[in-house]
């Protein structure tokens, strides 16, 4: 039973990280109908920014809590700037182009960012400092849930609540929902749709960067390629839950994380991807729109 609980928490931790990334995919898809393949790279850049900022801050002797908060802010803001720029140069000029064009542009951006970090940093794995300390009060439970798992779960929960509040109750959130539902009408009520799209990229990128920071501190190493695999997994989670649906992305992420954790624990870590993607295939066969996605009927 203990083993089961341990796997369960490990699954929740994975799910949280997937959710932080998957939200960016699903929000962007909801608003402009594009799968932003460069999103995984934004997550990777968030992790690299965190590595650089936290190293510099610790050289200057900042206390640990200050390092954590400043690193979190810096990587979220820096990744958001990347997300914003990617949208402006790679997607906005293609707003009225056929759907395939921005998709190809996204794949190009993904390769560009990967290789840019490869050249500017290093192809090797870099050690990431253990930003999250082991809490004393977690000591009795250390066998089943680590301190960093706890921090990841709590941070993710807080971020989700903030995001829900933003989307449900703020003016920006309403503008985002309106734009996602009917872009032309959103323009006709006076919403600056370009701004809404930029904000969506900024929020999605900041969330991914927080995910990147948390997972890097949890695992302890990063390289330029981490964004690809995490991106594909989070994308799978978003599709699983129903792409375009925000609760769907979160649900899909947790299901995917738990599936992987149990597959690793009870079968073999070699099979974790097999289980994850088999689940995707099954869902797509029986519920093509995803768990919470709406089946859209194309009217002719």
């Amino acid at each position, binding site marked *: 039973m203990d083993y089961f609980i341990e796997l369960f928490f490990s699954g929740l931790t994975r799910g949280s990280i997937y959710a932080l990334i998957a939200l960016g995919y699903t929000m962007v898809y909801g608003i402009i109908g594009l799968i932003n393949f460069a999103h995984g790279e934004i997550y990777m850049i968030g992790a690299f920014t965190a590595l650089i900022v936290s190293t510099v801050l610790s050289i200057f002797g900042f206390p640990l809590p200050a390092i954590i908060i400043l690193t979190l802010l810096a990587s979220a803001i820096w990744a958001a700037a990347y997300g914003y720029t990617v949208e402006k140069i790679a997607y906005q000029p293609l707003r009225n182009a056929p759907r395939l064009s921005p998709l190809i542009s996204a794949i190009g951006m993904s390769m560009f960012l990967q290789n840019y970090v490869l050249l500017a940093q290093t192809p090797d794995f870099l050690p990431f400092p253990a930003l999250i300390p082991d809490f004393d009060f977690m000591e009795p439970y250390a066998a089943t849930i680590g301190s960093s798992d706890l921090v990841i779960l709590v941070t993710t929960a807080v971020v989700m609540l903030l995001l829900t509040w933003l989307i449900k109750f703020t*003016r920006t959130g*309403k*503008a985002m*929902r*309106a734009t996602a*539902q*009917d872009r*032309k*009408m*959103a*323009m*006709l*009520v*006076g*919403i*600056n*749709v370009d701004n809404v799209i930029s904000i969506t990229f900024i929020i999605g990128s900041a969330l991914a960067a927080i995910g990147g920071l948390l997972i890097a501190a949890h695992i302890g190493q990063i390289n330029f390629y981490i964004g690809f695999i995490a991106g594909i997994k989070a994308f799978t989670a978003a599709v699983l839950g129903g792409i375009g649906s925000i609760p769907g992305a979160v649900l899909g992420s947790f299901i995917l994380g738990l599936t992987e954790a149990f597959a690793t624990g009870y079968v073999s870590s070699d099979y974790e991807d097999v289980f994850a993607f088999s689940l995707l295939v099954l869902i797509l066969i029986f519920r093509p729109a995803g768990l919470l996605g709406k089946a859209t009927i194309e009217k002719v």
Partner: protein
Amino acid sequence: MLELNSISTFYGNIQALHDISLRVEEGEIITLIGANGAGKSTTLMSISGIAPPRTGEILFKGKPIHELSANKIVGLGICQVPEGRHIFPDLTVAENLDMGAFLRSDKKQIEKDLTYIYDLFPILQKRRNQPGGNLSGGEQQMLAISRALMARPQLLLLDEPSMGLAPLVTKQIFDIIKKINREHNTTIFLVEQNANLALKVADRGYVLETGRITLHDKASTLLSNEDVQKAYLGI
């Protein structure tokens, strides 16, 4: 108030409007009638900045607006109720109305306007917490017009408000249109396929045929014009 000076609008390489010129004076109801595909909706989309004209100019109160983005044009007081109503389906009725007032910040006045709307259409108040997508066609049209009114427009562009509605509901909608025009001095630019109805409420009318204005006169004169009767009134 609004002046279109020989505008031409294109969709890709296809020209939808050829040298359209027309004027709307403050406080009047004018109508643009024509068959399917004549370019009526395109005219409105050109004014709203969704399909900006390639040549020609659009003046609102003497100032050019044809190069402004759609949200700036709404900010000037030009609001459109597009064909097919375009209610935000997953927003509630109240949220839809709220979106109409998106560019306004005078909270108290917005509250007052909301009360006015609910007086005008009590059914919307009853359904204010339901998603807009659940309303019937007539209710959606009421909501679409109300949403535009929440922006306090000086010029209201209405595209086919009678489409798909039962005759009784259509009559109710047109009564409201007249009332808005009288009580708020809102200028109204009405596009309709139901020419008979449109010409009865309008002061003046334009006839659009395959992207060109072919006739322009007082609405009452157009109603008795033989060509118009044959082509659009089915007499």
